[in-house]
């Protein structure tokens, strides 16, 4: 916790769990043993020790979103996300500049003051115990021997109301000097000693300091302390028989009106009239719980612990129409995969939704998004480059072309199909020549969430889909030359998150435009092999057939043996190899000679460094080539 928002998130998360625990314990108060009642607090302690919102998950209730709503509403800022790096307060990294910074300083001061108070009271108690008169051997040793319990230094103190154990490493048993202490009270304290219950007192005091301004957690701390005493009562009763058990109840009853002061690192049998009454009720219910009870106790604890500790992740944004709520929801609905971030960005463009864009926008862009919310009203998002709202053909979805890892992030080109040709252009109606918008994008991690930024302006262009690569869209070109030919291999990859919906009764299926922040990409690859004649005019007559066989060449590996293309054959394989052989007719030297082309579903969507290729002229292998990415060519060509 480095600011007041981090503390708010941590304490609210714990409060949610505390409320659930109080409800469960109220429901099972008279049903499960004190051992279970105390163990159940372990769930709350685990939550208190776990940074809230860890890995983008929340506990029971979407507290991160609520904190963001409050934060944006109070500060008017949207470009921040609350993080809890540690469950304990850390000193602020900058000098306080706002009311919220000063509030955090006030919180830190309160926590430090309470801790100081606890330490001081403990030190004073230890000093007082030093002045106590050592107890003569006898009663304590007798009780310890009878029940096989450890003993520690014991002292008598004047004015003491009740016995207690103080300390963890060098515990001292303090007994009232003014009256005789019943052996059952000593048994109770020795059991505290045996089970080191003072440690729990210290843990509870630690959490009291951390959450000193949360009354609900103070209530839980009180309840946990009482449950610890009830557990010790249970342990005592398990060791007593018949009339002794009733005596023990009477002793507790006599303590109902005694004053008690709780000091961290101590355990005291008396804990207030109301609590003593509850403990007596527990004693009345006392029974040796049957063996099967352990099973259900463990099962209930597991059912409590697992959903609380595993947490949940926001998957969809809220749709209230309120800027603060919807944008906070969007910021806290993290894209957990780069594919999810690209998917969210594409759908934000297609639908023109501001909140979808906020899901995958860097924090630095969030204030601008909130501004455009106010400017355009509602959730509409208009981007200067992509202001084509309602012009995209939703039924065709989107594609991320030529996805490649770069410098810890992923880059690719977003392609969206337009419903019609842009102004001043024409479209034949042929689906392979549709007009599209393309924009290069980069996805990268920012504070545990994947975000997307544009690498360049959006452009419109026309598709040119033939066999293999869509020549109207960006692709990578690999090439090498030999004899009188230049061999080119064009490669293009297409990735998208599957958003297909179930077809309706007419078999019509529209892609779901809800972002999938944890989406995974499905990939296709397209390859086309071409040859260009670069030789002199007089050599043209030398050739009547040309063929190429190509396959991926991994650096450091032996050149693969390539398939020999048969006359007129063309083909490809899922390993990325392509081959083709064609007869040369008419003015074949006038343009690129198509040799092979095709696509693969689920093929490797990365771009190989090199291709090995064999050039065949007139059916004979003429040269071994190494195709390299073309100079200056990149995925955005």
């Amino acid at each position, binding site marked *: 916790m480095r600011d007041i928002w981090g503390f708010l998130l941590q304490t609210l998360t714990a409060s949610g769990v505390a409320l659930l625990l109080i409800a469960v314990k109220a429901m099972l108060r008279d049903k499960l043993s004190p051992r279970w009642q105390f163990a159940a607090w372990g769930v709350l302690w685990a939550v208190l020790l776990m940074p809230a919102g860890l890995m983008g998950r929340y506990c029971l209730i979407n507290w991160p979103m609520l904190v963001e709503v409050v934060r944006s509403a109070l500060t008017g800022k949207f470009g921040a996300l609350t993080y809890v790096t540690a469950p304990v307060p850390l000193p602020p990294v900058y000098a306080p500049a706002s009311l919220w910074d000063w509030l955090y300083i006030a919180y830190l001061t309160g926590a430090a003051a309470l801790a100081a108070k606890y330490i001081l009271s403990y030190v004073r108690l230890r000093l007082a115990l030093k002045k106590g008169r050592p107890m003569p051997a006898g009663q304590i040793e007798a009780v310890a021997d009878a029940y096989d319990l450890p003993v520690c230094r014991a002292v008598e103190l004047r004015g003491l109301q009740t016995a207690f154990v103080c300390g963890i490493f060098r515990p001292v048993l303090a007994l009232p000097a003014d009256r005789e202490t019943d052996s059952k009270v000593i048994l109770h304290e020795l059991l505290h000693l045996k089970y080191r219950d003072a440690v729990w007192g210290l843990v509870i005091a630690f959490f009291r300091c951390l959450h000193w301004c949360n009354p609900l957690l103070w209530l839980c701390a009180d309840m946990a302390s009482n449950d610890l005493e009830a557990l010790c009562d249970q342990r005592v009763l398990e060791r007593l028989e018949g009339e002794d058990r009733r005596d023990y109840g009477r002793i507790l009853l006599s303590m109902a009106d005694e004053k008690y002061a709780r000091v961290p690192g101590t355990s005291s049998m008396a804990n207030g009239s109301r609590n003593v009454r509850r403990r007596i009720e527990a004693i009345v219910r006392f029974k040796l719980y049957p063996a099967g009870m352990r099973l259900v106790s463990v*099962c209930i604890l597991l059912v409590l612990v*697992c959903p609380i500790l595993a947490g949940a992740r926001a998957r969809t944004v809220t749709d209230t129409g309120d800027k603060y709520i919807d944008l906070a929801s969007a910021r806290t609905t993290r894209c957990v995969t780069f594919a999810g971030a690209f998917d969210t960005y594409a759908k934000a463009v297609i639908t023109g939704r501001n909140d979808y864009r906020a899901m995958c926008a860097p924090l630095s862009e969030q204030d601008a998004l909130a501004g455009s919310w106010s400017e355009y009203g509602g959730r509409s998002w208009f981007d200067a480059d992509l202001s084509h709202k309602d012009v995209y053909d939703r039924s065709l979805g989107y594609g991320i072309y030529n996805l490649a890892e770069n410098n810890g992030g992923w880059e690719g080109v977003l392609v969206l199909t337009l419903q019609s040709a842009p102004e001043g252009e024409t479209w034949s109606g042929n689906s392979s020549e549709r007009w599209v918008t393309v924009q290069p994008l980069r996805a990268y991690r920012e504070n545990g969430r994947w975000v997307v930024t544009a690498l360049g302006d959006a452009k419109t262009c026309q598709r040119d889909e033939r066999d293999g690569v869509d020549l109207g869209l960006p692709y990578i070109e690999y090439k090498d030359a030999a004899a009188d030919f230049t061999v080119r291999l064009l490669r293009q990859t297409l990735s998208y998150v599957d958003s297909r919906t179930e077809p309706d009764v007419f078999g019509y299926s529209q892609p779901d435009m809800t972002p999938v922040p944890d989406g995974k990409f499905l990939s296709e690859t397209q390859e086309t092999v071409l040859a260009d004649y670069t030789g002199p005019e007089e050599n043209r007559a030398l050739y009547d057939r040309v063929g190429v066989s190509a396959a991926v060449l991994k650096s450091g590996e032996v050149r693969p043996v390539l398939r020999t293309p048969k006359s007129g054959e063309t083909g490809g394989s899922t390993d990325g190899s392509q081959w083709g052989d064609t007869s040369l007719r008419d003015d074949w030297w006038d343009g690129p000679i198509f040799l092979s082309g095709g696509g693969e579903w689920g093929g490797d969507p990365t771009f190989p460094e090199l291709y090995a290729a064999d050039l065949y002229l007139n059916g004979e292998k003429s040269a071994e080539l190494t195709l390299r990415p073309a100079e200056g060519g990149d995925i955005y060509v």
Partner: protein
Amino acid sequence: MYESLRRLTSGVSQAAWGYFFLHININIGSVSILPAFVGYLLMLSAIGKLSGERRELGLLRPLCIILAIWNGADWLASFAGMSLDGLFTPLDILVSVAGLYFHFQFLTDMAALAERYQPQGSPIARRLINRRTVYVTLMAVTDVLFSLPFELWDNAQTVIAILCGLASAVAALTAMFSLFSLRKCLIKNAESV
């Protein structure tokens, strides 16, 4: 004596039919015609009839009412094609915990009654205890598996959770048959009186 045995028989019978309603589902669309809340109402009535014999059963009344209300509300929601499950996680957990304890204690108490009224050497009580252990364990495992983040395990987690859910239903139904066997014993006892 006869009246008491008749009351006992009726209580055990209602408990058995309660499990029938809880675990047999016949749906018309999204609406069950054997709703689970009827099962809990039958068990509530059984608790009323049997708590004279077994004091601990009385403690289960509030839990049974909670479960009946929750399942009743869920049944009503099913008319609108909705479900209360997953709507608010804390309530889901509360209901899961209530269900776990309720069935554990209810079957434990039924086994205690069987121990008292079954013919000597009859395995009904032992069977009920075994079914209870299996049923409660599998219920807990199912709840735990469904509560864990699915993206971690993908489909395997769902499949295991569904299998556990099915197995726990089978355990509950075999417990139901044991309760019917107990009822048969009680009828015989009543006839002999």
